[in-house]
């Protein structure tokens, strides 16, 4: 992608910003959008010379039609939502085309609202979260885009000590002629001691070419716990860009389990900041790629306080001409003594044309830190393939079984065993059929 093209897409988006009618919105929001739009206009889109984005094939996003509040049809019509993946007891929130569709009755202590609806009571908190979003430089262009068109959003809040159960968020698109790009923002606020599970399900019908750019901001109070699961089964022409930032107070716990089984261009940025002592972040994921699909996990954990622990654990299976990226960073600041950091990324290449770029980054400025990391890119163990074949399984069956088992290392870590079993089945189904690397004479 050349610089001129990148700027022209950004310019097109800037003009769309200028056409927004913002008169009814609070002043801070208008200035926030204006600042973001300027950043976007000045910096343009990320290009291959930006280290953080050098592998991301953004060209497919350039021709999408940006949906703003001017064009958006609310409510969208005829959206088909997938069958819910979570247990029936979970509250279901449907988001179509980047706008909130349904809200259920919530138990005491749990608030679910749209961004506009939440502005009254939560305005100060939402404002400070929005203003804290890093928009500087071309690496943050999609955060700037999201902020410039800040409009549709979801607020989830659990009060102190509330055991709020599970929420399922289903993301889908309504049928439409033109491929489009939607922006959305999610706020999850858990007060001290609150507990919640949020399961996100991204699924679109085959052939859908839309893109979704989601920023999620999570605040965990002292001792709060959020279990965050993301299951992505988008069409192989869909794009999904997410940026999730988590601020964790003392003794809070955040677990992320991401399963990318579909999608054409998928990029997740997950930034956890362990600001209070004893906070724990566990960020794990599995992805299965075939064709020319792309999945990128950019994970960063910032150990600010002492005695915090974090784990990054990713498993990737790559077939066809697919490409995967794992960039796992852990920063242990001076004073964050006694931190424990574990990082592991293992990948299986099923095809000679697939490519995996894995990059662990550990920066340690504290004392008495326990840190381990490992990254591998390899092929299936042929001795194991032969073993299974001598028991009667075909070569293809044996390979699928071993490949799926490789990813089960991620589902095995889920506490919700019912969901883990369902995800294991989905993983098994997602395994690409690839001929063995070493062709036999037949």
């Amino acid at each position, binding site marked *: 992608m050349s610089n001129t093209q990148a700027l022209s897409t950004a310019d097109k988006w800037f003009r769309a910003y200028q056409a927004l009618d913002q008169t009814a919105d609070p002043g801070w929001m208008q200035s926030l959008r204006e600042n973001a739009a300027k950043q976007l206009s000045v910096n343009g889109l990320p290009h291959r010379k930006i280290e953080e984005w050098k592998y991301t094939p953004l060209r497919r996003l350039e021709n999408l039609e940006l949906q703003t509040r001017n064009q958006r049809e609310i409510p969208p019509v005829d959206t088909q939502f997938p069958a819910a993946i979570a247990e029936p007891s979970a509250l279901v929130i449907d988001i179509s085309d980047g706008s909130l569709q349904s809200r259920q009755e919530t138990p005491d202590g749990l608030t679910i609202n749209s961004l506009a609806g939440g502005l009254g009571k939560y305005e100060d908190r939402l404002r400070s979260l929005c203003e804290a979003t890093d928009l500087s430089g071309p690496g943050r262009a999609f955060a700037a885009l999201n902020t410039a068109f800040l409009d549709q959003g979801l607020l989830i809040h659990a009060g102190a000590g509330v055991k709020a159960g599970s929420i399922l968020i289903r993301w889908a698109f309504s049928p439409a002629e033109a491929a489009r790009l939607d922006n959305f923002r999610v706020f999850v606020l858990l007060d001290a001691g609150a507990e919640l599970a949020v399961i996100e399900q991204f699924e679109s019908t085959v052939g859908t070419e839309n893109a979704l750019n989601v920023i999620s901001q999570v605040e965990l109070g002292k001792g709060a716990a959020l279990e965050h699961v993301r299951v992505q089964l988008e069409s192989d022409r869909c794009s999904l860009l997410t940026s999730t930032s988590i601020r964790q107070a003392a003794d809070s716990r955040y677990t992320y389990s991401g399963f990318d089984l579909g999608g054409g261009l998928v990029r997740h940025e997950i930034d956890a900041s362990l600001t209070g002592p004893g906070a724990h972040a566990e960020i794990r994921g599995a992805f299965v790629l075939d064709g020319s699909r792309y999945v990128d996990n950019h994970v960063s954990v910032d150990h600010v306080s002492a005695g915090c622990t974090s784990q990054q654990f990713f498993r990737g299976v790559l077939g066809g001409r697919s490409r995967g990226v794992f960039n796992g960073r852990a920063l242990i600041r001076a004073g964050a003594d006694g931190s424990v950091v574990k990082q592991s990324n293992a990948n299986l290449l099923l095809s000679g044309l697939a490519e995996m770029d894995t990059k662990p980054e550990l920066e340690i400025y504290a004392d008495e830190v326990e840190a381990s990391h490992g990254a591998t890119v390899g092929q299936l*163990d*042929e*001795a*194991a393939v*032969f*073993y*299974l*074949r*001598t*028991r*009667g*399984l*075909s*070569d293809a*069956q*044996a390979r699928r*079984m*071993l490949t*799926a*088992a*490789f*990813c*089960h*290392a991620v589902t*095995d870590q889920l506490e919700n065993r019912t969901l883990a079993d369902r995800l294991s089945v989905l993983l098994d189904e997602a395994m690409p059929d690839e001929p063995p690397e*070493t062709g*036999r004479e*037949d």
Partner: protein
Amino acid sequence: MLEIKNLHATVGGKPILKGLNLKVSDGEVHAIMGPNGAGKSTLGNVIAGRDGYDVTAGEVLYKGADLLQLEPEERACEGIFLAFQYPVEIPGVNNTYFLRAALNAQRKYRGEPELDSMQFLKLVREKLHILHISDDLMHRAVNEGFSGGEKKRNEIFQMAVLEPSLAILDETDSGLDIDALRLVAEGVNRLRSEDRSIIVVTHYQRLLDHIVPDVVHVLADGKIVASGDADLALKLEEKGYTWLEQGGIQPLNEEARV
């Protein structure tokens, strides 16, 4: 059951089997003994169809048909089972899940209905009971973290479930203490039957105290150099393999023929 004629095979281009002849009839148990490097494990791997073991001459007939044309899984489905010297650990694959998939693949091949999980569980319980194996093995990943004895018992258990016509036990006694050896041997003995042939490949005679073979063969430098009854194994144990190399074969063969 099995007839091997003038089998020559190479591993990585190096000749290992150099004209091996062997005939195993239905229901017979044959022991193949020999020094390290004689080609014992190569024979098992050639019969099972492992990549990298290239047959350069000779033929292997199984139930009267050419075995070497078949893929490893087709050989398994036709009733051949290799108990590995070093069973492979497969993290993430549950033992029950794996074995049911294998059995159903074989049943499907033979045109038999597949077993659902309840039917399979019933079968597994029977077999575990017969072999005196605790069902703890079934809940673990295939061979992962198993002790040497557990791995070998798991091989015999798989054999019990898959009910092969021809089983090759490749150094099943290696790495086992006396108690584990007895347990494994008892398992094998329970699986002896008129329509199942077993080839026991071993370096030591001690396994044959427990699994008494119908025929004992001595494999040296890629060929069967002597065959006899169970007493041959005892003689070999007493005199050692070096005795073979020093020309002890002739009298041995004559003795065996009596």
